[in-house]
């Protein structure tokens, strides 16, 4: 085995997906000497599976602080997108014209309505939504099938191209002089030299701060530094079609149309462990549901289907936690890397750099799981 090389940084961010890259961009602006350690080209990457929704509605029905967090994050998006375009030339394709979540039967409608009311209550009327029946819905989207009961609608929602977002963030990292290193899977970390020591197979990184944004690997990695983040994978399968003439004016939870004209159809929620594969059953089910909503899509060709693993905390709400045992070590875990990207890049990065953000992050400690 060859000798390892030693490198020094102020901060090491473990994970170069949407969460790690956004946070690293924020930290880098402070001038800190920063490295982002990323995995291999074929590792599990929730960022590549992300549907691209900037989504507020339905979040935090039982967790008011999360509802507020999502709303705040969504509101920062236009500014954030402009900033990225300006800095990197990459247009992440933000469209924030509201979002629809279709209700295909009466039970869905009732459950949704009650959920929306609850969020409205918890956020003291800050959260705007409407329940639209079929007639009203088809005024906005004429192609919706007459069989669809209706939809919930929230004006704050939207979508973005998550892959271009990641590309923009990586470009930004490059411009800001951040050392991005792929194929650097972290094996272990420990306190040392007044800071931390992070080990990969080929290198040893010495730093003052380490931020774990490594998706599903966070649970294992964070333990070394006294952080306990229970996580489990939740598979989602998605379909994407060939280009179709534009017809969808806004994002919907079931189908969204990208800038290029392709349609993304999602998604499933499957508890199957670390298995990203597609299944014929779910792929078929997604196609059927899409056609129930938009029957005119029958001749549209499937371009590809894939599965990705969401990073789920026990309540589905993010964890923002600094280690009590080892201050300077942070764990960041969530399944909404797109919606929260702006917030991660600003407030969360700011918090890690020492800004007074305790009130913001306090509800999101891992301590709430009583581990």
């Amino acid at each position, binding site marked *: 085995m060859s000798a390892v090389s030693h490198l020094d940084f102020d901060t090491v961010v473990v994970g170069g997906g949407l969460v790690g890259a956004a946070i690293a961009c924020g930290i880098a602006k402070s001038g800190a000497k920063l490295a982002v350690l990323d995995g291999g080209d074929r590792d599990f990457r929730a960022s590549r599976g992300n549907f691209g929704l900037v989504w507020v509605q339905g979040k935090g029905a039982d967790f008011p602080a999360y509802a507020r967090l999502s709303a705040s994050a969504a509101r920062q998006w236009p500014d954030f997108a402009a900033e990225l375009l300006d800095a990197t030339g990459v247009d992440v394709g933000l469209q924030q014209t509201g979002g629809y979540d279709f209700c295909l039967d009466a039970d869905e409608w009732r459950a949704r309505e009650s959920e929306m009311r609850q969020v409205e209550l918890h956020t003291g009327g800050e959260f705007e939504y409407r329940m639209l029946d079929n007639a009203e819905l088809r005024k906005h989207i004429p192609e919706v099938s007459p069989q669809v009961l209706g939809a919930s609608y929230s004006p704050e929602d939207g979508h973005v191209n998550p892959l271009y977002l990641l590309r923009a963030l990586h470009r930004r990292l490059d411009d800001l002089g951040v050392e991005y290193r792929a194929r650097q899977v972290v094996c272990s970390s420990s306190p040392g030299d007044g800071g931390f020591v992070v080990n990969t197979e080929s290198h040893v990184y010495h730093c003052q701060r380490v931020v774990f944004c490594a998706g599903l690997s966070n649970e294992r990695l964070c333990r070394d530094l006294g952080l306990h983040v229970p996580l489990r994978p939740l598979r989602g399968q998605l379909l994407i079609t*060939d280009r179709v*003439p*534009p017809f969808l004016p806004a994002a919907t939870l079931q189908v969204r*149309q990208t*800038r290029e*004209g392709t349609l993304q159809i999602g998604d499933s929620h499957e508890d199957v462990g670390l298995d990203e594969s597609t299944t014929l059953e779910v792929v078929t089910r997604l196609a059927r549901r899409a056609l129930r909503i938009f029957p005119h899509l029958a*001749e549209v060709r499937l371009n590809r289907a894939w599965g990705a693993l969401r990073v789920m905390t026990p309540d589905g709400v993010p964890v923002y936690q600094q280690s009590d045992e080892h201050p300077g070590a942070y764990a960041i875990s969530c399944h909404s890397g797109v919606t929260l990207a702006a917030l991660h890049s600003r407030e969360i990065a700011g918090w890690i750099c020492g800004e007074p953000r305790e009130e913001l992050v306090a509800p999101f400690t891992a301590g709430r799981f009583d581990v």
Partner: protein
Amino acid sequence: MFKLLDEAAELVEIELDGEAVSVPADVSIAAALLYLDRLPLRQSPVSGSGRAPFCLMGICFECLVEVDGLRDQRACQRKVRPGMRLRRQLLVSAESGA
């Protein structure tokens, strides 16, 4: 661009872009379009650049045409039939969504 080895081979009539044309019977649509030398066969939805059949074995997806109203059919994978209505996918603006 391409010709029949047997000049006396049977021809059939089909419609291409609204015009009646004669093409060899029982060949693929791609072969018929090459016979007619009607290239480019489509315009790429990304930049509008003209494309034509490339591999003729169904894996390059360059030869997409509209057949009897159905878009994006691989011309190399289907044979011509008398009376078939073909349209080259030349209009970019309807697809770009930009």
